[in-house]
């Protein structure tokens, strides 16, 4: 803050020192020679200036040392020193190229016209609006080929992000995030309010420069910065209040329906789903100040978020602060940037299980007994959901700190060196407590407490040289550099029980009786530290513009990782791209711009875990201390390689512009943990380079620039994408995965994977009817006269199984509409997906009315419910088409006219609805596609792993899409009222 004051003081002192004279003049158009109205003439480094009148004339006060900055949209900006002159006649030259966007690409920027790969840029105006807590939600539906799906509206979980479908099987499936040049930065530590623009690098030739971490695509985030040459200090205040409501409950039997179906009447009438959900009220406030002198710019911002989810108790409080300072020296030859960002989030994770139990709990059961205690009964996997939320705690704190410093120095006019150093720290501290009185967990355990903390540190150092020179008929940019990335991770977990009182909580672990009895099956302590996971790379890139319309890019990256086998640590990843602006050479009919692009790039992918190339041993206290073989290392483990070819066409014709991209992607040697022969390796699973996937797709973006009738304007835009992924090679020709799970449907794999066929086949018997005994009958699909639907025959010739749907949509669509009428603005964004199906697991388990178990669970109601069907057995009955068309985001805003004397530069009010309505035939809670499967943790299943935040993290299986599991949080409809104020 002192620094800002100092800068401000210096700014003002400059203005005071020099004597002022009045100067005047005319600004003329270079082509027509006529006066230009509305041109800005500003004294450099100050806020003072003037505009030309209708004839192009101006006058203002200035001193001899002042520099006039003359700027006008579409013309080349000029700077002129005042000196002794008092009158000026200045001619401005138009420059259409000034309108060209500059696009941030890996280790530099490029003019948009030079781009030869599939890159999409979005600025603030294009972002989604509303109660947005994760930056990826800004992009949902906006970029063709980028799928952002969040099943349910859990404020504490992040959406799944996929670029062009599956880009890898066993490694980092999410795109690389680069924030202000810091690769691998976390989206958790940037507030959506602070983002100026986001670029998405879609294809291999663009992402290759980032190497392995870019193989699932790259999302480049640029945060807001102060402006140079300044308009002085500006401040903004943005705030909204949002109300999240349950968009759709799971339809279940009412009290009377349940009793009619044979359920035991426990005497009450409880709408459990209503009892555990609420209208979640959230507040968000963002304050930012920014400004800049000639040589220094800065921006400081603070964001407060108090977010309440629709599940009772779920939500978080967050404070985020960000500071960016940018300084130029030595006549702009030296540039130094600092960015610091800090986030602290206190979460109440609540218990998503309560939502599932609220669907399933007996509607005649009371919440509490007459004596005030919760009604609790021993049922298999079913607990009073209100009791779960009220009795137990599930809290967490997370702190993120990022810092980066970047130096750029121009050694020569055409040669610069850049160095970038960044650190990122993430710390989590979570606690859970379950008292003895809780049947859910803690019962007969004397209470149960868990504590988890983790610490993650990421270091980045990169340096590169950039050579940029123009020749007669060509422009050449060459970049070469070095990159060093290092991740380390540590954690500690403690679980203890047998506490003296239910009021203990998780902060008095020393009172645990487990410490006295020493019962090893009760007390659990675990700690872990990862090896230093390094990626070291050397890279180079060449961009050439030849003539005025031919563009060529090539890059190469040599990259090494600690995670691979000793002899296979290094990989070389090349990329090429070429583009031609056809309209520069031939008459292109109705097209005023037509650019053809082609690119090819190879990127590498790394496994998620470290230590896979080495044999591991484990120690257990079993029988007095036992060392045993834990995992067979694969010393031959090598880079998974993704080779992608992209062909693109950018065009504009009159008011229509757009682009079409088609691509072909081969993922070779994909890394997957798979079954191996136990007799040979001593363990049955090993991580291997296991097969090959192919994805082909097409993406179309179309924009119509403004239907403009006086006060009204309408700018629609559409993005469409479609892809198919095929398993080209795999050790196993045909297999099934995606276990449906308990109750009663363990060992029921419902997704088929076969070599030479598409990924995402939902697989099972075709429902045919109901037998007299209430069991389902199935179709004799192979016509052999015998109906064989046991799991063991699922892929055998005698089995009567077929594909029941595809988990992956055929077409995904986003449709934006920006409308303005006078001071009103209306933005409607529709999102749709077609061709995918979902397995409605709630129905698959709980729809048939089984007289023997009617009292174990309430029943799901749907249009397909069959009164006589008593046995839940997976079939086509539970696979539903999930096509949908949704008004995803609608915003109505009003900007007030500001008088010149107002203290405010801008006031805008807006009202927004997220998830306003959905048209779908799907009967579950949310028809959004499910792109990966987390397995059976939805019901009594085992959580194999925890993620770095200490959250349950079963390794997602990307080969088993399409299963709508029961652990999903409910989906919200959110109403937001917000204000944007500029000072």
């Amino acid at each position: 803050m002192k620094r800002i004051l100092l800068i401000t003081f210096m700014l003002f002192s400059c203005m005071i020192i020099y004597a002022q004279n009045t100067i005047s003049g005319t600004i003329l158009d270079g082509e027509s020679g006529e006066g230009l109205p509305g041109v800005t003439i500003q004294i450099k480094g100050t806020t003072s200036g003037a505009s030309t009148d209708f004839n192009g004339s101006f006058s203002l006060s200035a001193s001899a040392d002042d520099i006039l900055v003359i700027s006008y949209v579409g013309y080349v900006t000029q700077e002129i020193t005042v000196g002794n002159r008092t009158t000026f006649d200045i001619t401005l030259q138009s420059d259409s190229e000034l309108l060209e966007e500059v696009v941030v690409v890996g280790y530099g920027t490029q003019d948009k016209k030079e781009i030869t790969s599939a890159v999409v840029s979005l600025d603030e105006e294009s972002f989604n609006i509303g109660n947005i807590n994760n930056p990826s939600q800004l992009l949902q539906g906006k970029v063709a080929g980028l799928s952002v799906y969040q099943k349910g509206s859990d404020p504490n979980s992040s959406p799944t992000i996929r670029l062009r479908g599956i880009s890898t099987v066993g490694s980092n499936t999410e795109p690389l995030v680069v924030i202000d040049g810091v690769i691998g930065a976390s989206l958790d530590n940037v507030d959506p309010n602070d983002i100026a623009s986001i670029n998405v690098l879609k294809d291999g030739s663009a992402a290759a420069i980032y190497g392995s971490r870019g193989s699932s695509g790259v999302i480049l985030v640029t945060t807001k910065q102060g402006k140079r040459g300044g308009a002085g200090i500006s401040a903004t205040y943005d705030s909204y209040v949002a109300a999240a409501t349950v968009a759709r409950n799971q339809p279940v039997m009412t009290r009377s329906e349940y009793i009619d179906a044979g359920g035991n009447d426990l005497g009450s009438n409880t709408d459990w789903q209503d009892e555990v959900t609420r209208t979640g009220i959230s507040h968000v406030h963002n304050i930012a100040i920014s400004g800049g002198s000639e040589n220094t710019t800065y921006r400081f911002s603070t964001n407060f978020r108090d977010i309440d989810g629709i599940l009772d108790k779920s939500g978080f409080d967050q404070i985020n602060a960000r500071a960016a300072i940018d300084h130029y020296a030595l006549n702009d030859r030296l540039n130094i940037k600092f960015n610091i960002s800090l986030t602290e989030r206190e979460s109440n994770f609540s218990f998503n299980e309560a939502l599932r139990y609220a669907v399933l709990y007996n509607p005649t059961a009371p919440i509490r007994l007459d004596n005030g205690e919760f009604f609790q009964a021993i049922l298999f996997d079913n607990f009073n959901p209100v009791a779960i939320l009220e009795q137990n705690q599930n809290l967490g704190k997370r702190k993120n700190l990022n810092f980066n410093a970047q130096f750029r120095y121009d050694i020569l006019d055409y040669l610069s060196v850049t160095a970038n150093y960044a650190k990122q720290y993430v710390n989590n501290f979570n606690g859970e407590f379950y008292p003895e009185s809780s049947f859910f967990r803690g019962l007969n355990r004397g209470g149960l407490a868990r504590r988890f903390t983790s610490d993650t540190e990421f270091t980045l150092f990169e340096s590169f040289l950039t050579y940029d020179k123009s020749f007669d008929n060509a422009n050449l940019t060459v970049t070469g550099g070095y990159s060093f990335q290092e991740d380390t991770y540590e954690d500690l977990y403690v679980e203890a029980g047998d506490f003296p009182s239910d009021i203990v909580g998780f902060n008095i672990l020393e009172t645990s009786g487990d410490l006295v009895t020493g019962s090893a099956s009760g007390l659990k302590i675990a700690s872990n530290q990862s090896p230093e996971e390094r990626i070291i790379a050397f890279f180079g890139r060449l961009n050439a513009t030849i003539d005025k319309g031919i563009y060529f890019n090539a890059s190469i990256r040599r990259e090494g990782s600690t995670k691979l086998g000793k002899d296979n640590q290094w990989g070389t990843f090349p990329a090429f791209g070429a583009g031609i602006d056809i309209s520069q050479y031939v008459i292109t009919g109705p097209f005023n711009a037509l650019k053809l692009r082609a690119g090819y790039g190879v990127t590498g992918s790394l496994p998620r875990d470290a230590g896979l190339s080495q044999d591991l041993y484990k120690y257990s206290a079993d029988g007095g201390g036992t060392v045993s073989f834990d995992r067979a290392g694969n010393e031959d483990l090598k880079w998974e390689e993704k080779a992608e070819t992209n062909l693109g066409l950018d065009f504009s014709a009159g008011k229509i512009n757009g682009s079409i991209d088609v691509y072909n992607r081969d993922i070779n040697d994909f890394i997957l943990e798979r079954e191996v022969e136990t007799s040979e390796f001593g363990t049955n699973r090993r991580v291997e380079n296991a097969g090959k996937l192919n994805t082909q797709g097409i993406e179309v973006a179309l924009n119509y620039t403004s239907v403009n009738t006086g006060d009204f304007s309408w700018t629609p835009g559409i993005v469409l994408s479609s892809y198919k992924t095929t398993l080209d090679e795999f050790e196993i020709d045909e297999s099934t995965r995606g276990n449906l799970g308990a109750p009663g449907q363990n060992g029921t794999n419902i997704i088929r994977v076969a070599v030479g066929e598409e990924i995402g086949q939902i697989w099972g018997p075709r429902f045919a009817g109901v037998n007299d005994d209430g069991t389902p009958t199935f179709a004799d699909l192979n016509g052999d006269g015998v109906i064989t639907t046991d799991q063991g025959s699922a892929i055998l010739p005698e089995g009567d199984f077929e594909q029941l749907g595809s988990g992956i949509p055929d077409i995904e669509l986003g449709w934006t509409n920006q409308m303005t009428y006078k001071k009103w603005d209306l933005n409607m964004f529709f999102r749709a997906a077609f061709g995918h199906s979902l397995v409605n697991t709630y129905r698959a388990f709980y729809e048939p009315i089984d007289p023997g178990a009617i009292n174990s669970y309430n029943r799901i109601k749907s249009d397909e419910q069959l009164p006589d069907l008593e046995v839940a057995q997976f079939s086509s009955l539970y696979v539903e088409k999930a096509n949908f068309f949704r008004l995803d985001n609608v915003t109505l805003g009003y900007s007030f006219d500001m008088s010149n004397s107002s203290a405010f530069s801008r006031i805008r009010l807006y009202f927004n609805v997220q998830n306003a309505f959905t048209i779908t035939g799907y009967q579950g809670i949310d028809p959004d596609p499910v792109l990966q499967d987390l397995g059976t943790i939805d019901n009594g299943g085992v959580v194999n792993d925890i993620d770095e935040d200490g959250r349950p993290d079963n390794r997602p299986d990307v080969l088993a899409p399409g299963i709508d599991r029961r652990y999903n949080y409910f989906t919200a409809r959110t109403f937001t009222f917000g204000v944007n104020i500029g000072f």
Partner: protein
Amino acid sequence: MKMRNLSNLLLGSILIFSLGCTDLEEDIQGDFTEDFDPDNSGVGQSDNVNGSVPADGINAAFSPLLQSSANHNNYFSIQEVSTDEVVITQKGGDWFDGGIWLRMHRHEWTSTHPAFNNAWNNSYEGITEANRLIDAITDVAALAQLRTVRAYYYWRLMDLFGGVKIVTESEDDPDQASRTEVFNFIEAELKAAIPDLGTGRPDYGRVSQGGAYALLTRLYLNAEVYTGTAKWQEAIDAADEVINSGMYSLSPSYADVFAPDNVDNAEHIWVVPFDEATGAGMNLAQMTLHYPSQLTYDLAEQPWNGYSTLEEFYNSYADGDSRKANNFLVGPQTDLNENPILDVAFDPADEDGAPVNYTPAINELEPSGSRQAGARLGKFSFKIGQQNEMDNDYPLFRYGGVLLDKAEAVARRDGNWASSESLMLVNQLRSRASASTLTTIDEDVFLAERGRELFIESLRRNDLIRFGKWGAKWWEKSAHSNANLNLMPIPQEQIDAANGTLNQNPGY
């Protein structure tokens, strides 16, 4: 100028840093990357509630037995659910699991049943540990134990799957052997190991000569099934080595042999040393008890209401046979205060209503087996306040079993089920159980007697095959005469992973 110097310095350091660091050594901190000897030999032992496994450095080869001998979806489940003594009924939506347990019981299994792969993996994990330790250890007695336990794992594989790969070196991938070759390997290994094994009672969880001979007895008793050549006399001789060693005797109480505190019971020859703290793996309480029985035994986790006994098998015990009371849990169930425990989700068709009452009669196998039906497996009795893992040691071999093995071998050698030698051995066990003394016996009675005595000791499948009753009809399982079913299919996962080097058994 100063700034210029600074920049040059910066540039220089960038170049140095860039060229300096290309180190990609992966230094693992959170796991052990190599085998090691625990320096603290007492570590982990003090909490062993009942008895201590010796800190002899070879436990890794024995501990996989904990993961397969008395839990769900592994060796135990295959050996029991496929027989006439144990069943997992489908209880409406519960326990259908794709029909895999119904098919296991009805002999309609396929190679993708997960229990097959789990049992296969478990045995080869034990074999891998034994191979690794055999390479590393020089102590002769320890080596002999490792060869014996390895032979036991191969016996499980050969018994279930027939011909398998005989791996004796780490990361070796030999050709698949025939069932007879595996049989011969086991026999040779045991014979080679016996001279170096201890002659007394084994250390806790370990094997001495008695265990090796008991395994040989079992091998020979089933030799006709395994190789086509009967070896009755060899079985008798091996059994006599156990009986005459004087190290083992019948426990006066049948219940004590299986109780939570059954450590070093006189009858134990070789046990899996389950322990709630340092020997996790026995989950029978979870597997068999109904959910509300959590309150009867003060269990920390809810049971699963899966396994029970067939009514016919329950009724094969005469009243007064103490084994009947010991082996099953029947009748109304109460909590710690003797109040009835309630199942608020009871079947409307259940005349007992909410109070839990385990009835030996079961209405049907599927689809709507009653939630409270079926006598529960109470042989390995439950203690109050049981943690998730039980304490009862599980005998792989016990004296009573060897007596029955010998009795059968004698009867078969002599072709006379009523031989007095045989009858005497059977009656020893019956009189301990307060059951009437038999004056004569035939093949069916002998099989039934083995069933009563050896209930849930993972032997029923072998017995039914050996007695030719594997294809017989019982309850809701129909008769078949498919001899291919005597062998289980090699797990599909292994066939897939083996790239053509493993051949599936005929008929699958």
